[in-house]
């Protein structure tokens, strides 16, 4: 190949030297961003001694889940794509466990998303490349009722279009469809939710609860895993919420991977809350439901 003109050649040479130097620096620097087990152990020690009921650990970047091995048992760890924006409304305090030296850690973007309504408590603790900062969560809302946690006291039954009910003994319905408190993934995020399973046709699966105190009812519902992506051989579902006879119906469209969120409205102490799921075709119509009555007014 013939020689280029001198200026272009010199430019090409400089680009090669620059990219070679950058790449070499990067490869030598990258291992220095790792976190030693001892640093995780030191952070875990702080969490062990200073944790309070209701605390949560939030990871930054969201995928640094090696921390799960070290965080003390029982202390929830949150880290999923998009968790920077999670309001973590059930938790009054948040421990942000971060690795800011990692490439593309994006800590400024994290702070922009996370900081709203959060106040640092004390100073940041640094363990090698691991940073630990406690925040009070201004977005916290006390929980009055969590449907999944209250399942033991709920009534579960199938209800036909004519209103006829068929109880589900031990939350197992006649058609084999169960209701349970389970972990599921909806659009890559974990939820410990009420697993409901549409019976098919016009029949609804119903979970009936009583609110122990007044508050504001919020419902999140979505299809777990890849069932949400199915378009063929499935139908959309109707998720309905009835509070003291007032019914609100929401559609969970087939083919949409999303945790849908509905602000249902206020609930009084002793209110009867019915969560109902129906889908014409029962195939792959399991729905993960997080129904929560928050005290302390609307968000």
């Amino acid at each position, binding site marked *: *190949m*013939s*020689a*280029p003109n*001198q200026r272009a*050649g*010199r430019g*090409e*040479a400089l*680009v*090669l*030297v620059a*990219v*070679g*130097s*950058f*790449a*070499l620096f*990067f*490869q*030598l620097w*990258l*291992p220095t*961003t*790792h*976190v030693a087990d001892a640093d995780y152990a030191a952070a875990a020690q702080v969490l062990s001694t200073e944790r309070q009921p209701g605390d949560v650990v939030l990871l930054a*970047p969201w*995928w*640094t*889940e*090696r921390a*799960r*091995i070290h*965080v003390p*048992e029982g202390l*929830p*760890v949150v880290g*999923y*794509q998009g968790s920077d924006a999670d309001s973590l409304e059930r938790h009054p305090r948040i421990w942000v466990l971060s*690795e800011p030296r*990692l*490439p*593309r*850690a*994006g800590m400024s973007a994290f702070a922009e998303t996370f900081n709203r309504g959060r106040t640092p408590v004390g100073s940041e603790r640094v363990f090698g490349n691991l940073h630990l900062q406690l925040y009070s969560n201004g977005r916290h809302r006390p929980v009055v009722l969590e449907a999944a946690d209250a399942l033991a006291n709920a009534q579960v039954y199938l209800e036909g279009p004519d209103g006829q009910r068929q109880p589900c003994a031990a939350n197992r319905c006649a058609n084999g469809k169960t209701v349970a408190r*389970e*972990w*599921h*993934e909806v659009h*890559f995020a*974990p939820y410990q939710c009420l697993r409901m399973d549409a019976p098919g046709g016009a029949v609804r699966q119903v979970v009936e609860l009583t609110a122990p105190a007044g508050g504001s009812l919020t419902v999140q519902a979505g299809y*777990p*895993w*890849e069932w949400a*992506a199915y378009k063929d051989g499935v139908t959309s579902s109707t998720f309905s919420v009835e509070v003291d006879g007032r019914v609100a119906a929401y559609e969970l469209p087939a083919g949409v*991977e999303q945790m849908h969120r509905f602000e249902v409205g206020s609930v009084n102490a002793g209110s009867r809350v019915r969560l109902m799921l129906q889908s014409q075709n029962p195939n792959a119509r399991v729905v993960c439901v997080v129904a929560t009555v928050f005290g302390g007014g609307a968000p």
Partner: protein
Amino acid sequence: MSERRIAWGLFLVAFLSLLLTEKYVGFGRDESVYFHAGEQHGRWFQLLLTSPSQALTDEAITRSFDFNHEHPALMKNLFGMSFVVFHEKLGLLRPAAAFRLPAFFIAAWMLPLIYLLSRRVLGRGAAVFAAVSFLLVPRQFFHSHLACFDVPIATMWVLTVYCFIEALEKNRWWLWTGLSFGLALAAKHNAYFIPVTLVPFVLWRGWQVTKETPEARRWFFGINGVFVFAGVLYAVMAAAMGPQKLLATFTAQSPQLIVYLLACALGAWMTWRLKAMNEAAFRTVAPLVAMASLGPLVFYLHWPYLWHHPVDRTAWYLNFHLTHNHYAWFYLGELLRGPPFPLLYVIVKTALTVPASLFVPMVLGFAWVLVRAAQRKVTMFELIVLANALTSILLISHPQVPHFGGTKHWFPSMPFLALLAGASLERGAKALTEWLAPKFKAATEPRVLATLAVLLCAPAFIATARVYEYGTSSYTELAGGLPGAASLGMQRQYWANNLSGVLPWINQNARPGERIYFHENHGGQIRDLQRNGMLRTDVSAVGGPDSADMVVYQYHQEFREAEFNTWQAFGTTRPVYGLYLDETPQVVVYRRQR
């Protein structure tokens, strides 16, 4: 030192580097399938030696070759024969290494081929750089270990192009071009696109070299016309009879076969006549005629599965790839489940996985050929390199083409990009020398080139050395390494071979007979790990977390439900161990609480 010695040296360095690092590379999902298929092929070759008449029956052939007949047999034949010879008969290698040996051999040939191709336009130093750089891409070094087809087809592709270029100048290389194309067809279906990159140059050169001989020009285009006419006849038959009937009646004495044989015979005869009229025109078209004639012949002969049912089984094979499934694939924070795929996917993925110190010279080399084309200074060789660098990338970039499998589907582009990177290095070194030589006496061009080559290779070598055994997870500087790619929302890994990273822990900590759910690993992988002494044989694989005492989860965004099912089954969200590459979770181990 002679060119031949350098080429052999490159081969040996590549072969030994693959052989010596082999045992650390786990078995991918597909590789275990090919181990099994290869072993069956090996058994058939043993039968062929001991009882040929029995081996040649359709029943015996189907028994041995029906499994995994979605891929041709060349590599699996070699894997199987190598297994029988080097493991079973000689006991020299563990089973996996014996299966993989032919893959090392063919991958190692890539380096001399790149070197010899590069030497047409580059000095020795730059040509060596181009050759070595192929193995300094972590994903390419990883795939070069595997008893799979992605690196072999890339090698066969380069071999065919190399033979074609030689054939333009030398006698008999048309024959090697036809045979090497046949080997490419026998390696993987990517080969069908090789003629696409060569036909335009054949036509262009044929036009150029027959300017002075009108009769030769008529014959030259007549030869091309024969094959075009045959193609039109097939199209007419397909339209008249319907594709199904066309295939069903494609028998030994059918018009369909006669059309093909006549086209080959007439094309070959006309090509031979052309030789007497215009040698250059003959050398231009003869490789293409050889590819059209010998390619299908080699394809048929190498694959016993076709011997009794050539047409319907070939049709099934082609149809399988024309209607291939789409697998979920994570890209820039989005899960791609089906077409249309992002147009820039291939370019972005290449930029994020090829070391920057190699990728940038590739881009500069590519741009330089474009500049020369714009200046009308470009040579045919440069354009052939450019076309072959582009073809696989453009093909996979089509939004309707399946986009799984990382970068391996456009490996055939990478050797040509490596050559362009070598050209960039040579230009850069020359310019740097002109600048430095007046100031530093020691700054001779060979020294500057060597220094620059080391600077460009060193980061790629470090990246490769650090993660090659987990090659499907590798991301390089422009991505920000594996951590940067995780933040960008790129596919973390595929093929589940990263399991090898947690096996020592499992072997040390598993209770006797422990039931383990190996997420995303199929039974063949577990069988092969135990067979090769990488996993204790007393542990048993079970089908899900509910029946397991231990779960080994392969971190994929699209499979997170499997991890959360484990939380549910084990009553904990806390793993006990994991493979974390540069902090990114790859394989996570959970254990049931007792």
